[in-house]
């Protein structure tokens, strides 16, 4: 089932909104829209970045998730202290699969959890002493760490601890940078503000630390910004850039180090993958250091070729030739992948509901496989994200912002996509409804999906999910109609 008309989609939204009380209905209606490519401004038809309504099921995170989980967490040679009660750090530990190279616990700390484990007395008497002690303990136990970030959890802001003072004092004692980050979970409406706060902390405490220092630069220095190396994504991107002749100075922040971040102001171009979480620092570097930034998209061969050419356009002819060489080199490999999977996936429909960049970035990859995205939405996007999305999506497709559990389920029931791309919280709900789901946050423990190598894995995974024989076996034999039994036996997985 695909290609609803505009009226049908609008009717669908109205039908789903029917169950809400009047006030909630009015509010939620603003977050659901029918795409219109002709529309220049998303804010005319969709509202985003607003507080979720109490009582509806949202899957948003908090500012701490945006700062510690997304932006700071993957920086591998720093120790990120979850300052506050133990749960926030422990339940988010190593969940995002930000791959890195190094010996965990010796010179890298990506999958470890450091927390000040607040108790009642710390709330009553303040946790500053505990933090100071923790900093010294960290220095004693892990002398090879390159710096510390203090990621505040909610109580820190509520009781008014002065983590900045403790950090400054501690940094003098251990002679390493300590960055206090005021990313208390209650700030903002979603993790999006956490990204902003984290970017501002990097700007204020990290970025200018090597200004004026000598740096052996080349005219081809770039940095990868906003790639968190989930399942190795940043590596799959990096090799393409290096093959075309660029030098990648820094990876922000997947498999990244503190030194790389401090060297970033020396690059010639910032390549921005996740616009939502790191546009802030790119804008800052553009203003302060005059480094232009460019959004790129490494999902699917069409978008990769487009992006490689756009990147090369910022450099001289050797890089331009390099880009063409890279595109030509991978062309046969991509043709083979498409030849294998496109016949199996042609015409299948997908609905997406993910976070910062994927609801629009992966559309091209699905289209390369002959699939059609019929609905997409963001957890925590802002208007500028929807401005960009509306051009990517087909006319009369469905857009949903901060969609509630109920709405997404109803949309999926009505639109009956062949695949849903979302997260773990949605996965089993939809699979029990008989609709395959791939997690598009963690690549369902597969990956990488970026780059040419990633596309081959992406295509295989999507085929695995959709063509899995289990989807025809969901109705138990005693409930099956006789003709359905025959139909289920017919298709043999090729």
């Amino acid at each position, binding site marked *: 089932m695909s290609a609803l008309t505009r009226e049908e989609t609008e009717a669908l939204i109205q039908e789903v909104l029917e169950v809400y009380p009047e006030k909630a209905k009015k509010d939620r209606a603003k977050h659901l829209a029918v795409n219109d490519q002709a529309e220049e401004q998303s804010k005319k038809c969709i509202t985003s970045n607003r507080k979720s309504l109490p009582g509806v099921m949202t899957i948003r995170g908090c500012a701490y998730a945006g700062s510690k989980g997304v932006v700071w967490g993957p920086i591998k040679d720093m120790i990120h202290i979850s300052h506050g009660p133990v749960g926030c750090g422990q339940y988010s530990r190593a969940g995002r699969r930000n791959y890195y190279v190094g010996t965990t616990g010796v010179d890298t700390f990506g999958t470890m959890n450091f927390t000040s484990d607040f108790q009642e007395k710390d709330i009553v008497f303040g946790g500053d002493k505990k933090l100071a002690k923790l900093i010294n303990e960290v220095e004693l136990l892990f002398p090879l760490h390159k710096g510390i970030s203090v990621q505040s959890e909610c109580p820190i802001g509520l009781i008014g601890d002065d983590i900045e003072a403790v950090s400054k004092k501690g940094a003098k004692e251990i002679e390493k940078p300590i960055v206090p980050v005021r990313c208390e979970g209650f700030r903002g409406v979603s993790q999006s503000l956490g990204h902003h706060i984290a970017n501002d902390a990097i700007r204020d405490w990290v970025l200018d630390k090597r200004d004026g220092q000598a740096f052996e630069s080349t005219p081809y220095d770039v940095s990868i910004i906003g790639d968190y190396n989930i399942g190795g994504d940043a590596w799959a991107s990096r090799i393409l850039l290096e093959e075309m002749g660029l030098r990648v100075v820094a990876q922000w922040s997947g498999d990244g180090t503190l030194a790389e971040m401090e060297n970033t102001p020396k690059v010639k171009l910032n390549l921005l993958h996740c616009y939502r979480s790191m546009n802030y620092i790119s804008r800052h570097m553009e*203003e302060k250091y005059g480094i232009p930034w460019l959004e790129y998209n490494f999902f699917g061969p069409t978008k990769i070729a487009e992006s490689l050419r756009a990147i090369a356009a910022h450099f001289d002819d050797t890089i331009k030739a390099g880009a063409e060489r890279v595109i030509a080199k991978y062309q046969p490999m991509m043709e083979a992948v498409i030849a294998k999977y496109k016949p199996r996936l042609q015409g299948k429909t997908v609905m997406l509901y993910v976070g910062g960049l994927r609801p629009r970035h992966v559309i091209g990859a699905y289209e390369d496989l002959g699939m059609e995205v019929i609905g997409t939405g963001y957890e925590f996007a802002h208007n500028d994200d929807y401005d960009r999305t509306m051009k990517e999506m087909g006319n009369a497709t469905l857009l949903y912002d901060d969609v509630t559990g109920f709405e997404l389920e109803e949309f999926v029931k009505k639109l009956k996509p062949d695949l849903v791309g979302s997260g773990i919280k949605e996965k089993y709900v939809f699979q029990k409804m008989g609709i395959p789901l791939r997690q598009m946050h963690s690549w369902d423990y597969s990956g990488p999906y970026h780059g040419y190598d990633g596309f081959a894995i992406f295509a295989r995974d999507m085929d695995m999910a959709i063509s899995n024989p289990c989807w025809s076996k969901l109705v138990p034999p005693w409930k099956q109609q006789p003709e359905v039994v025959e139909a289920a036996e017919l298709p043999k997985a090729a």
Partner: protein
Amino acid sequence: MANIMVRKDAAGAYSFYLPKRDLEDAIVAMEFDSSEKWGGEIKLNNGGAYYIEPQLPPARFPISLRAKRLDAAE
């Protein structure tokens, strides 16, 4: 007063960015845009209006400025 950032794209058009609200929009009209005087009342694509103290045109873009909100479209 709000901190804003004004960018100039490759085509020479100005864009407006308000970090506090993550608001990015095109500037459709600017009161003064000459070599002696730059700024004044600016109009955004979304209907909002801000006022930048008229000044000499900035040497390079993007630039962070203080601006007064005259009429925000929200």
